[in-house]
């Protein structure tokens, strides 16, 4: 098996009972595995809610013990959700602007050039984390230098080596965001903090707490996911030089290639919801106040929807993947993520002849019944100039 392969641990359960069970810190989760069931649950926000009393509970693993700030708009249900989403959406569509893309191209060029000059490097820390952090300064519209601090935090702000959730580490981020909000109040500018502080949502001025909720989501939601997508892309093209060549020869398949890689990688494995009433998913009872999760990674390998689901088909034309979620809460950062992928792949085709995986350690998520490889803890790669 190639190093870049991400297998599908859910197949048997998906085809058999349609669900999986996971004990998450004594708050069990029923994992919904099929493509249609996942979309159905995502669509049904009345029965499967994102808001609710306990903040952080829909995240798997649950963050109830390490967070008391509501992430916005992600942990709010309609109709309030709509006002928040409408406020932030135009801002998160800025990656479609030319100027944004040209700055992002400089950032990507920087990390790729560094890799080529060094010859070989550890991709997670030295490539993906840098790229993700620097790109985030564009999304927030703040000076590039700020990324140096985030890079110094390492890949895991919310995790340490031995635990999936680390309250002390999470506090570093929360305290940092608090300080940035205070700075923006004292000195308003053109950055996301200032823009939100000066905005209204649902007819009310945004509070500090709400602004913090948007920023925590922006930091947390786009970190591991982007790092995994970038690292997995490097690993994939290292293992499949003919695919890199194909993108070079047929740049017109760039879009389908990106969507396909997102489907195959599914950088976010699952997202939870809390049932508001006694209900069921694929004939399994779900009790009111218990949790389900929509397993995007499993849905994206559903053979009833995708032909050859375990293969990367770069020109897959009809590709109804749910790698960015589905329904009301679909990924707010998707435009930014897609643009990172597009510029990264373009730059690789322009500059990199081939890559070689020298050594790696897989990052395996422990989901009780399932063990899922989501990417790498570290991966040493040699880059050869075109």
């Amino acid at each position: 098996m190639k190093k870049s392969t991400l297998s599908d641990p859910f197949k048997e359960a998906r085809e058999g009972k349609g669900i999986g069970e996971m004990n998450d810190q004594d708050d069990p989760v029923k994992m919904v595995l099929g493509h249609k069931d996942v979309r159905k649950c995502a669509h049904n926000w009345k029965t499967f809610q994102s808001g609710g009393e306990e903040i952080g509970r829909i995240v798997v693993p649950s963050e109830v013990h390490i967070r008391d700030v509501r992430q916005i708009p992600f942990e709010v249900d309609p109709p309030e959700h709509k006002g928040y989403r409408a406020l932030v959406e135009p801002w998160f569509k800025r990656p479609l602007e030319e100027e944004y893309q040209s700055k992002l191209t400089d950032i990507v060029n920087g990390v790729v050039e560094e890799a080529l000059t060094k010859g070989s490097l550890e991709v997670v820390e030295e490539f993906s984390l840098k790229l993700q952090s620097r790109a985030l300064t564009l999304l927030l519209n703040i000076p590039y230098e700020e990324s140096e601090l985030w890079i110094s935090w390492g890949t895991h702000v919310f995790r340490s080596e031995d635990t999936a959730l680390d309250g002390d580490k999470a506090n570093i981020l929360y305290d940092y965001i608090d300080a940035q909000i205070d700075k923006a109040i004292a000195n308003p500018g053109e950055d996301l903090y200032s823009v939100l502080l000066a905005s209204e949502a649902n007819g009310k001025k945004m509070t500090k707490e709400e602004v913090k909720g948007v920023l925590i989501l922006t930091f947390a939601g786009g970190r591991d996911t982007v790092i995994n997508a970038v690292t997995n892309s490097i690993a994939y093209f290292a293992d499949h030089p003919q695919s890199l060549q194909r993108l070079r020869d047929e740049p017109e398949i760039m879009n389908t290639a990106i969507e396909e890689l997102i489907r195959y990688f599914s950088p976010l494995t699952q997202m939870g919801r809390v049932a508001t009433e006694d209900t069921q998913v694929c004939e399994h009872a779900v009790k009111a106040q218990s949790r389900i999760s929509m397993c995007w990674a499993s849905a994206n390998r559903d053979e009833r929807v995708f032909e050859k689901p375990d293969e990367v088909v770069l020109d897959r034309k009809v590709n109804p993947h749910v790698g960015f979620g589905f329904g009301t809460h679909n990924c707010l950062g998707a435009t930014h993520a897609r643009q990172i992928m597009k510029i990264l792949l373009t730059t690789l085709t322009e500059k990199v002849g081939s890559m070689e995986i020298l050594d790696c350690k897989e990052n395996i998520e422990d989901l009780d019944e399932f063990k899922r490889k989501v990417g790498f803890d570290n991966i040493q790669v040699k880059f050869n100039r075109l």
Partner: protein
Amino acid sequence: MAKITFITSNNKTIETEATSGSVMEVAVKNKVKGIDGDCGGVCSCATCHVHVKEEFWNAVGEPSELEADMLEFDDNVSEYSRLACQLKVDEVPDGLILKVAK
């Protein structure tokens, strides 16, 4: 060459002409409000949802199974719903009128 008219939800009419590509691409190029085309046309985002004007429905035709699945959970779905990215300009009837769903 096909003439395609989009009517947005705030009742603006946008007339376009195109020779190739998908109807979603035409809409995005002409900045038709309510058609974002986030996924670039692979049938994954449903941000290109349109209602085909009744008189064109037979000429345009039914969605494929996967497309119908995507539409099933979309808001404002009607019996004339299609995803614009799954309509090819050189296959749609000339003079086609589409109402933007969002």
